[in-house]
């Protein structure tokens, strides 16, 4: 029992000694430096993970010419989408008219359709088969 107490005391003394060696203040050192040290010891991994790398915080610069080209491309894409929509609805069914909506049966007379004067058959509609 006595031996065990001696070993424990020696261990505690060595730990305390190590602590005091680590935390020995030097001349003119702030007496509260341990608060800061303990704070940064906890978060150092997250703060150091981007070391020796380039953190990309880029912004979008306004370029008049590039914006113009982008608008033109958007118009081209939009026209293509419209053409595809017409091609897919070339039988007179309108995708937004569901069955019996507001008492309506879903069919629109030909001359009331928005695309009635556009060709129902041909290159624009891509419909070469079901023309009857």
């Amino acid at each position: 029992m006595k031996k065990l107490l001696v070993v424990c005391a020696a261990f505690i003394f060595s730990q305390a000694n190590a602590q005091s060696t680590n935390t020995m203040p030097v001349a003119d050192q702030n007496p509260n430096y341990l608060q800061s040290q303990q704070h940064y010891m906890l978060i150092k991994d997250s703060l150091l993970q981007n070391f020796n790398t380039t953190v990309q915080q880029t912004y979008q610069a306004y370029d008049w010419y590039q914006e113009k080209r982008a608008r033109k491309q958007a118009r081209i894409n939009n026209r293509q989408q419209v053409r595809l929509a017409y091609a897919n609805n070339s039988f007179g069914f309108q995708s937004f008219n569901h069955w019996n909506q507001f008492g309506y049966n879903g069919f629109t007379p030909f001359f009331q359709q928005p695309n009635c004067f556009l060709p129902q058959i041909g290159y624009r509609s891509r419909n070469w088969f079901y023309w009857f």
Partner: protein
Amino acid sequence: MKKTFLSFVMLTTVSAFVLSGCANRKVTRIDPAEQIDISGSWNSTDSRLTAEAMTKQIIAEKWLANHTAAKGKKPVVIVGVITNKSHEHIESETFMKDLERAFINTQLVGLVQSGKKREALRAEKADMQTNASVSTMKKFGLENGADYILQGSINSIVDAYKKQKTVTYQIDLELTNIETNEVVWIGDKKIAKYVKN
């Protein structure tokens, strides 16, 4: 059967000729130091100019002589975070590596590893504790501590109207004493471009 086979061979040959004729891509090796500007964006010439300017400034400035005079040994530097705040994706490693190489080649500045590479080194050291022989095992706690940290930023200013554009890049690097937070050196490189579409 023979006729079909011959037709197939002829068709394949003709197709190969036609397709090879369509491919008009030409690739040539160029000197990496040659200045070729294509789009006006950040390119290898900008990176090289930055590396040259920064290396020249950091080696020639007074901080190096001051440190050596005060401490009696060469300073040790660690590379910190470089923040790209410009409008383009720019990888700073292309010019930072040139700078690090200059530190090592001139033997005027010591360099310690940082970031993911340092993590890998520590992981290797940890692996050694259980797998390497005692005589070759490397110990923890004997790393070289850095005296200075090198941090930086990349900024840009864009002015564009119709088909004309000016872009100015500003690359700043700062060297700070880790113990005292004193900034001992600031290097900068400005690159301005005029682009007409």
